[in-house]
């Protein structure tokens, strides 16, 4: 477990990370969600040991006294590699820097190159790889020493669909045995991958929960649109009154009714009953589920990608 307690980082007048407190459990995929400049990279840089906190501490529990450098593998947002070394050469080099034996590091390098679809490129200079391949090589370099914790900074940024699927599969496979911390400003990525998500902005933790719980509990909720066959105004008003009594947000449009409520699917049978009681015939039901982006907008009052 990684315990983050009262973590702060100041750069002069700017407080990049402001009193963060949370735990990251073993074998979970933990997402740090936030817009650019939210403090995600600063936070993980402190977890890696690249930055020292201004205040607070990071405690690594249950890792059998392993040193931080062996524990953590870090894949930065930018592709960082040795352009004049081949894929296998740089993996061997980095492996040796962690004190691994030549025999072990070679078999490990071949294994992970295969895992990330770079086996056929092991003797190719890194500078000659495509963008997606460089990204995958970047991940290989982060895990060559078989770390217990893998930190991925924007792992899917700039990836082609093929590489994205490969990276996603790798993350899921890796997470079955290890801990993954990933930062992203991509809501879909966090929603799909993370077991828990911490939303941070301006260096502060806004909310921490599973993506589903965040979507179910934060914001205006899912949007259910009922397209009506008849538009009897009295019936619609009656139906609106019944739905509003359940604290649901109702909007009437010509020929349809929009209802906003968290986790609305659970209430769908009750809503249908109300419509029937009011004498309305529903010809079509459209559902747009609450997204993490909606959650974020609700929490911060602005769009994520601004």
């Amino acid at each position, binding site marked *: 477990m990684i315990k983050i307690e009262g973590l702060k980082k100041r750069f002069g007048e700017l407080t990049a990370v402001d009193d963060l407190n949370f735990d990251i459990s073993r074998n979970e995929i933990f997402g740090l969600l936030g817009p650019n400049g939210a403090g995600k990279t600063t936070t993980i840089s402190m977890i*890696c040991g690249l*930055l020292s906190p201004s205040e607070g501490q990071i405690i690594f529990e249950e890792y059998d006294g392993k040193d931080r*450098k*062996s524990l953590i593998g870090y894949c*930065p947002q930018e592709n960082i*590699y040795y352009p004049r070394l081949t894929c296998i*050469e740089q993996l061997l080099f980095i492996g040796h*820097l962690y004190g691994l034996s030549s025999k072990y590091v070679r078999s490990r390098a071949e294994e992970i190159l295969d895992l990330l679809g770079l086996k056929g490129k092991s003797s190719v200079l890194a500078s000659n790889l495509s963008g997606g391949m460089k990204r995958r090589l970047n991940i290989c*370099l982060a895990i060559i020493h078989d770390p217990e914790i893998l930190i991925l900074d924007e792992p899917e940024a700039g990836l082609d669909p093929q590489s994205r699927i490969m990276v996603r599969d790798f993350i899921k496979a890796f997470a079955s045995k290890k801990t993954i911390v990933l930062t992203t400003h991509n809501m879909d990525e966090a929603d799909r991958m993370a077991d828990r998500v911490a939303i941070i902005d301006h260096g502060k933790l806004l909310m921490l929960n599973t993506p589903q719980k965040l979507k179910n509990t934060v914001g205006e909720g899912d949007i259910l649109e009922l397209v009506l066959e008849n538009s009897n105004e009295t019936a619609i008003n009656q139906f609106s009154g019944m739905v509003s009594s359940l604290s649901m947000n109702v909007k009437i449009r010509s020929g349809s009714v929009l209802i906003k409520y968290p986790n609305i699917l659970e209430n769908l049978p009750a809503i249908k009953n109300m419509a029937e009681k009011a004498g309305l015939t529903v010809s079509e039901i459209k559902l747009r589920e609450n997204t993490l982006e909606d959650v974020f907008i609700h929490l911060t009052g602005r769009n994520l990608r601004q």
Partner: protein
Amino acid sequence: MRILSVICKSLKEQLRSYWVLLLSLSMGPFFIFVYFLIMETSELKYTLMIVNNDKGLLADGYTINYGDSLISFFNSIKNDTIAFPLIVHQSDDSIAALGAVKNKKADALIVINDSFSQTLQRKKTDDTVAVSGVEFIGDLTSTGYLVSAVWANEIVNEYALLVTNSKRIIGVKETALGTSATAGGFDMIVPGILIVSLIMLMFTSSIAFVSEVENKTIMRLKLSKLTAVEFLSGISFVQLLVGIASVLLTLLTAILLGFNYSGSLTIMIIIAGMTSFSIISFSLIIAAVVKSANEVLVVGNFPMFLFMFFTGAAFPLHSDPLFSIAGYPINILGLMTPTHAISALNKTLIMDMDFQSIIPEVISILVLTIIYFLIGGIIFKRHHLKLS
């Protein structure tokens, strides 16, 4: 193990950056070749005009003209050990000969007077007769005149002693140190150029250090268990190999072009190795204050200029000593290791002096290298390797 990995990785990168490597390795041989051409086309010679006004004398029915004999004597001089520096031209027109000196087409004019033969003849029988039949004319402020006059005076006296069957009052013996008797201008410049080939190492070394910063791979090194000392030592070792390769290539080129050296090659390699490490240490200071290879090429020019032109590497340089330590003069130029390295190489390769004689230079190089490495290491660590 880790340092070995850094060496292997750095060596591969260096060999694959073959343009930079080629530039660095070819600079020394290139300079040697250029200096060889310059020295070959501008060999140091002094032009001497001689006007013979000697009327000669009649003896036993034969005409004797010692003035003509003196000119023949000048032309017959072929020194076995020291290259004869005079080109002798005889002229019958004293005004034209004087004009040549005035117009700097000749360095000195010797006028043999009309009674030269008669005076010498009398000297044969009467030792009290003073021989004063030769006039030297020239610009006394000109080094060319001074050298020509000294040589010519010696030859005239030698001839007079020979003809009058006289003996020198004082015998002078000249002993040349090392190969200095036979060393030409080219030989004298080679030790400096050997050091120039090492000064070029400043660029490859600085680029090797700073490329980790430029590629941001320094972050991977910070995350790993590699120490700053292992990192810096590994890269330095590879650059040391480049330095030694460079100096050997330069020496080989010089030998092929006729460089005549006398000292120990082992001592030369030791000095080259120490100087290489010193330049690498200095490169660390450059790498510490820049962030990219482009910046190295801009910033590195200034120290390279100082090291090349203010240490005696490109041409001989003199500076007054500030103070002495155990008799070894220290001057402001001595703050740069090439100054001591060139002095040591001159002593070894030209003067054939042993290791004992270059200990002050060796100590100076060592001390300066340690200072460079400490300054460079501390700044580099603070700027590029520190976990902030």
